[in-house]
């Protein structure tokens, strides 16, 4: 049996055991939420959570999340692995990976992630964007706190939205270039070289605004805009529509629900793995910002300032966008945050210990 732990760049780690089957546990620091579920469920106590949050008032006082709330004075933002593992204790059972609400810890058995193996539990959570409903407005892409959404927008041709007629009378044109300089759509190219003068209008770019016609000193340009002349005219709706693709990166998505919240249509749908609530005790909150710093869902924020000189007294929580991961409650030095997990939705499972571990996630 061969075991090895290798340090991988960017605070990730990787443990392998090769025998009857090859088991590999890898940790991806930039995906980790700092929720600490892995630490509390590890049956051999091999995992320690070090997720850090910074006091934004002073910039260098750091709160380590976890059972011990230590504050440390350090000068720079710390580069600390969110989760560390004792490789001599780890038995690669995969409980941390199975219960990780994101894909930060991944156990593979003979190359297959346990999230694809039926015997292991899976959270019933999903996020999707329905291409039939999506209008590719990119509101979700901007709102996504983890940059997990990429919206690729395919615009219709301008010529399919505005139509008209335009032509230049070569007899009249003096190739002065006024029209080229004024054209807002950059549709006109005039060549002024003596003896080789020419003017070309790109009808795919032209929006028939008629600026060139009105500015032409010799009235050489003849143009009409169909929309202006004939009123509303029929467009080919298939050609005029904005098309595109929307992709959610399943590795980065934490099911926070921002995309669903900002979506103007019903295209974005999110189902969270945990049901519950978040509350901030305004009496206890000192507005240090450690929670705002650690929250990966932008579910915590300082309220908008009510004017110069106003002091921010406490942080506000957006209950709808909280994933109940508890990273904020772990980081809060004043115990001001209460996060409750009332339900954990997962696939059925046979093992007693795994069932107990999943039940222990609930409050």
């Amino acid at each position: 049996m061969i075991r090895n732990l290798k340090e991988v760049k960017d605070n990730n780690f990787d443990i392998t055991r090769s025998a009857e089957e090859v088991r590999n546990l890898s940790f991806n620091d930039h995906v980790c939420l700092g929720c600490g579920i892995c630490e509390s469920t590890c049956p051999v106590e091999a995992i320690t959570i070090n997720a850090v949050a910074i006091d934004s008032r002073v910039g260098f006082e750091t709160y380590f999340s976890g059972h011990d709330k230590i504050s440390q004075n350090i000068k720079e933002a710390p580069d600390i692995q969110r989760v560390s593992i004792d490789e001599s204790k780890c038995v690669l059972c995969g409980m941390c990976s199975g219960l990780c609400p994101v894909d930060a810890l991944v156990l593979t058995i003979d190359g297959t992630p346990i999230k694809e193996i039926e015997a292991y539990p899976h959270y019933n959570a999903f996020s999707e964007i329905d291409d039939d409903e999506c209008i590719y407005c990119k509101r979700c892409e901007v709102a996504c706190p983890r940059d997990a959404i990429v919206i690729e927008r395919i615009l219709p041709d301008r010529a399919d939205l505005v139509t008209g007629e335009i032509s230049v009378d070569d007899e009249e044109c003096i190739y002065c270039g006024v029209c080229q300089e004024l054209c807002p759509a950059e549709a006109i190219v005039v060549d002024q070289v003596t003896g080789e003068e020419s003017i070309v209008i790109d009808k795919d770019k032209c929006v028939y605004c008629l600026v060139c016609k009105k500015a032409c000193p010799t009235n050489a340009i003849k143009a009409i805009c169909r929309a202006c002349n004939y009123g509303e005219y029929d467009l080919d709706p298939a050609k005029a529509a904005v098309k595109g693709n929307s992709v959610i990166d399943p590795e980065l998505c934490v099911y926070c629900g921002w995309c669903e919240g900002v979506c103007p249509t019903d295209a974005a749908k999110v189902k969270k793995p945990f049901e519950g609530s978040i509350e901030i005790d305004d009496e206890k909150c000192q507005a240090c910002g450690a929670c705002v710093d650690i929250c990966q869902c932008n579910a915590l924020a300082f309220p908008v300032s009510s004017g110069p000189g106003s002091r921010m007294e406490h942080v506000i929580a957006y209950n709808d966008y909280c994933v109940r991961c508890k990273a904020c409650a772990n980081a809060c030095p004043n115990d001001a945050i209460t996060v409750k997990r009332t339900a954990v939705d997962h696939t059925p499972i046979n093992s007693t210990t795994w069932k107990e571990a999943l039940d222990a996630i609930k409050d």
Partner: protein
Amino acid sequence: MPKHIASGLKYLAAVKLKDAGKSHQEIADELDVDRSTISHYLNGRNLSWNSIDVARTIIDLTPRDFLRMAEAIFDEPEQSRKIVNICRERNFEAIVEDSCIGCGLCVNACTMKAIKLESLKAHADSIQCCGCQLCSDECPTNSIKILEI
């Protein structure tokens, strides 16, 4: 010398199989030995009584020592597994408790290949169990109990 002791163990295995009612050919197939060698063994024409004495002593060791010795004497793990299964005098019951987390360390530890992982829990086949307890030593949650029956 190891070859002599291997023959001694094979002799004892052959006698046991004979007592269980197997034919010479069946015994030869089982132990991967010529049929004529088996006939020699069972007619009392063995290599030496000394090596058989040593083999008997090995069988009487603790289950784990017997298994380790057999592994050292035979090149093929498949063969040592067979010899241990045929020659061992003691029977065991292997119980996996519900506290099992399904880490699979016992599956790797079990030389007798008696443990399989199913639905996140180890399942031990008591018939194959030689009582070495290597699995329960490895188990991080102390979920495996080996009882002699």
